[in-house]
């Protein structure tokens, strides 16, 4: 018997018994929602989903998507989001809760079993489904309901111009890679035949045939697949700052041109094989980097359609968020995120502002208080007078600061690009001097000597040195749970002198944990107390309620939220209260003097109307590895700072200032960024998770977002800590340092090889075929050396 929910994989609260007979086996669930979904899935003969999914985490429904689809009964909106073709109506929806291929399969299978559905396609990478249906037989609201039955919440989505551009760019990259790969294989086959011919002897006519074949296949690779490098080279020439693109382009184009010349004159050596292989491997490296970047970050440029309830002339109606205007009165349910800035019209509610401030304890707001977009309503349904929408909200302002921070981000010079700058100039001067000298000497082979010089100095090994090492270490780190999404990260990590941590959600778990239960009434056991509390909290949206979900709830009637104080309900005929000191005092109960200081620890009481039963202490706890990681980092001579939006008091209660070199509290999002900018050392690694860290993440030399971060934080960070385990950070730093060593070795070898052969080539002692073999060998050594990085 397992104690995990069969559908969603969450632990089943102790003592809870929700089970069904599915696939001839007893399956247990954590809630009725999961049970309903699983019964529906198995009932529709889709139980293969449970066998094939990667992890045992099914989607749980947290919200209802019917209001937003109800909006589509409006003709104008329907026309906007639904494409009405002759073959049926088509809509794109963005899905939440989709994690692996099994989810995609489940959705496709389930929807296509519905009457009137013509086709369904789910894109797993972007979590967008495209559904086509026959409007005469079904409608979009019905489809949304069907999605909800199997546990997925959908929102209508309209791809923007940028999404389309990005998709086209990706398609072109795949075509380039495919052409380079196929071309390379054909040219290599011919090349092997030619090398065999060199050894065994071969008629010139066959050699010429193979050369023509290589030419035919190398040409599209050089002209089309190599295009990104030439564009980069042109940009370099314009900016007068040379990167590796320039020597790569020069090498490719000259080797190609001289090969074409050799083919035409039927003498000399052809380098089609080296050229195509070179282009293919460089393209592959770039493509893998781009794929890694788009993998874990949903980079959407358009917001999906969202519904919001408003009151106008005392009648409630639902409108799309985009139509909400300043001055409107919006109704926000508990658990819902405020979509706009506004002023609270209801008496009071508490608001979870953790996305803006990092402080996870909800803040009580009275009538007339300012409410910010992106914060979450906790207590009860409230009315809100809208003051700012869209780009004017505080959350949008943070995005703007982020844009600026990104623009001013310190650039990490990639070693290879620095080398490239001087290397190119040196090669060109040497090659032209060589040609000039031998022509002046009247040497008929002057051109071929110059080609030898260029091939010998071809920066193949040099320009592969960095990318292969980076690709290898990036993959190894991904296996360890450290996903790198931008190219410069490894070099920057190796240089890191200073690490800045956010507190909540980064060093701590960012949620409440029970630290102590103190029984004030002897007849009660702590299990009983927790069962009572879990029952009282079972429908609450307050972050505290989550803490108790692991315990089986007692059955409760007359549940009531007492805003900012607690909850109450009737269990087995007795009224119970669970809440803070204020609530107990209002009941006339005397609360024993507090033993803890600071508001980071919450003390809550369980009581009947006349008696205190138990005291529960809750606190956000430190990740267990946090302290050792900080200590080991400091031992390595790295400066470690804490930068948090929390108050000093709250930070102090779980962290000791002595652990850190700097201990900054009560920082606003832009203050975090400014603090980073004011630092002398620019080699800073920022580790954070929330929206409030985003400007700092964008502005730091390197930034690392926790795996459970907000999408915006992930989007603007250079790496994502998927393992959620802080000890991966020292591992990554070590791997980055080793990677830098390997890159240096590779560069020294490649440059040394070029430098040794160069004088010989200038002297005219190296025939082009020796140069070509040397070029291939030197690249091979670089690649083999880099594979040592596979072991972390």
């Amino acid at each position, binding site marked *: 018997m397992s104690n995990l929910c069969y559908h969603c994989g969450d632990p089943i609260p102790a003592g809870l018994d929700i089970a069904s007979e599915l696939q001839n086996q007893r399956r247990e669930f954590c809630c009725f929602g999961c049970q309903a979904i699983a019964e529906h899935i198995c009932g529709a*003969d889709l139980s*293969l989903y449970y066998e*094939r999914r990667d992890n045992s985490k099914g989607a749980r429904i947290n919200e209802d998507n019917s209001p937003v689809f109800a909006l589509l009964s409006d003709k104008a909106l329907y026309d906007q989001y639904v494409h009405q073709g002759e073959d049926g109506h088509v809509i794109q929806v963005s899905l939440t809760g989709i994690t692996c*291929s*099994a989810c*995609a*399969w489940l959705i496709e*299978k389930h929807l*296509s*079993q*519905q*009457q009137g*559905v013509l086709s369904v396609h*789910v*894109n*797993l*990478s*972007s979590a967008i489904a495209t559904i086509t249906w026959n409007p005469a037989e079904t409608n979009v609201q019905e489809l949304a309901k069907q999605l909800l039955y199997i546990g997925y919440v959908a929102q209508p989505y309209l791809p923007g111009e940028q999404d389309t551009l990005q*998709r086209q760019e990706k*398609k072109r990259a*795949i*075509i380039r890679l*495919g*052409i380079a790969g*196929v071309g390379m294989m*054909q040219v290599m086959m011919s090349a092997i035949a030619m090398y065999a011919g060199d050894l065994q002897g071969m*008629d010139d006519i*066959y050699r010429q*045939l*193979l050369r023509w*074949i290589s030419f*035919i*296949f190398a040409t599209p690779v050089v002209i089309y697949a190599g295009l990104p490098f030439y564009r980069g080279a042109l940009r370099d020439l314009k900016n007068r700052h040379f990167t590796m693109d320039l020597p790569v382009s020069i090498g490719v184009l000259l080797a190609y041109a001289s090969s074409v010349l050799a083919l035409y004159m039927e003498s000399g050596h052809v380098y089609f094989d080296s050229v195509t292989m070179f282009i293919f491997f460089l393209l592959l490296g770039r493509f893998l980097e781009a*794929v890694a970047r788009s*993998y874990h970050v949903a980079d959407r440029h358009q917001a999906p359609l969202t519904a919001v309830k408003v009151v106008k002339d005392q009648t409630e109606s639902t409108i799309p968020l985009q139509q909400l205007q300043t001055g409107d009165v919006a109704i926000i349910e508990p658990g819902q995120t405020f979509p706009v800035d506004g002023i609270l019209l209801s008496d009071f509610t508490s608001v979870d502002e953790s996305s803006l401030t990092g402080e996870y304890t909800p803040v009580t707001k009275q009538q007339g208080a300012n409410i910010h977009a992106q914060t979450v309503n906790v207590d009860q349904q409230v009315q809100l007078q809208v003051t700012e929408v869209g780009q004017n909200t505080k959350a949008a302002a943070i995005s703007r600061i982020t844009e600026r921070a990104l623009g001013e981000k310190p650039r990490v010079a990639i070693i290879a690009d620095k080398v490239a700058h001087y290397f190119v100039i040196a090669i060109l001067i040497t090659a032209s001097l060589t040609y000039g000298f031998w022509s002046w000497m009247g040497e008929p082979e002057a051109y071929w000597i110059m080609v030898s010089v260029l091939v010998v100095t071809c920066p193949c090994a040099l320009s592969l040195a960095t990318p292969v090492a980076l690709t290898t270490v990036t993959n190894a780190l991904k296996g360890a749970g450290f996903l790198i999404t931008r190219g410069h990260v490894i070099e920057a990590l190796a240089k890191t002198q200073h690490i800045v941590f956010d507190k909540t959600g980064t060093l701590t778990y960012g949620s409440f944990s029970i630290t102590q239960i103190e029984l004030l009434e002897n007849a009660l056991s702590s299990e009983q107390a927790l069962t009572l509390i879990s029952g009282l909290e079972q429908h609450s949206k307050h972050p505290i309620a989550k803490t108790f979900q692991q315990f089986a709830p007692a059955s409760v009637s007359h549940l009531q939220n007492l805003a900012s104080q607690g909850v109450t309900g009737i269990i087995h005929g007795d009224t119970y209260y669970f809440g803070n000191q204020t609530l107990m005092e209002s009941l006339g109960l005397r609360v024993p003097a507090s033993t803890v200081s600071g508001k980071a620890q919450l003390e809550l009481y369980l009581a009947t109307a006349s008696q205190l039963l138990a005291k529960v202490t809750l606190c956000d706890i430190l990740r267990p590895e946090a302290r050792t990681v900080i200590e080991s980092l400091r031992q390595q001579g790295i400066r470690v700072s804490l930068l948090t939006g929390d108050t000093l008091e709250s930070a102090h209660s779980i962290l000791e200032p002595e652990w850190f070199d700097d201990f900054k509290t009560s920082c606003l999002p832009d203050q975090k960024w400014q603090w980073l900018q004011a630092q002398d050392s620019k080699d800073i690694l920022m580790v954070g998770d929330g929206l409030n860290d985003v400007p700092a993440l964008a502005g730091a030399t390197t930034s690392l977002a926790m795996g459970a971060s907000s999408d915006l934080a992930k989007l603007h960070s250079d790496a994502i800590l998927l393992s959620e385990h802080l000890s991966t950070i020292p591992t990554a730093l070590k791997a980055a340092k080793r990677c830098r060593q390997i890159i240096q070795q590779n560069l020294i070898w490649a440059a040394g090889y070029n430098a040794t052969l160069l004088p010989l080539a200038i002297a005219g002692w190296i025939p082009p075929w020796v140069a070509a073999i040397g070029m291939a060998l030197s690249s091979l050594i670089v690649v083999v050396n880099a594979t040592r990085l596979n072991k972390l």
Partner: protein
Amino acid sequence: MESLFLLIPIAAIFVVIAVIIFIWAVKGDQFDDLNREGERILFEDDDTDKKA
């Protein structure tokens, strides 16, 4: 050995056809989702018809 003059170009034509099919597949969105398609074959289990 003269046959090479015929066989190699024929092989080349096949490669060109393969590339054209590849480009057609990319343009037809078949490479849109690199995380999914590799596993699709594991799920195509039966020929459940639509409940008409």
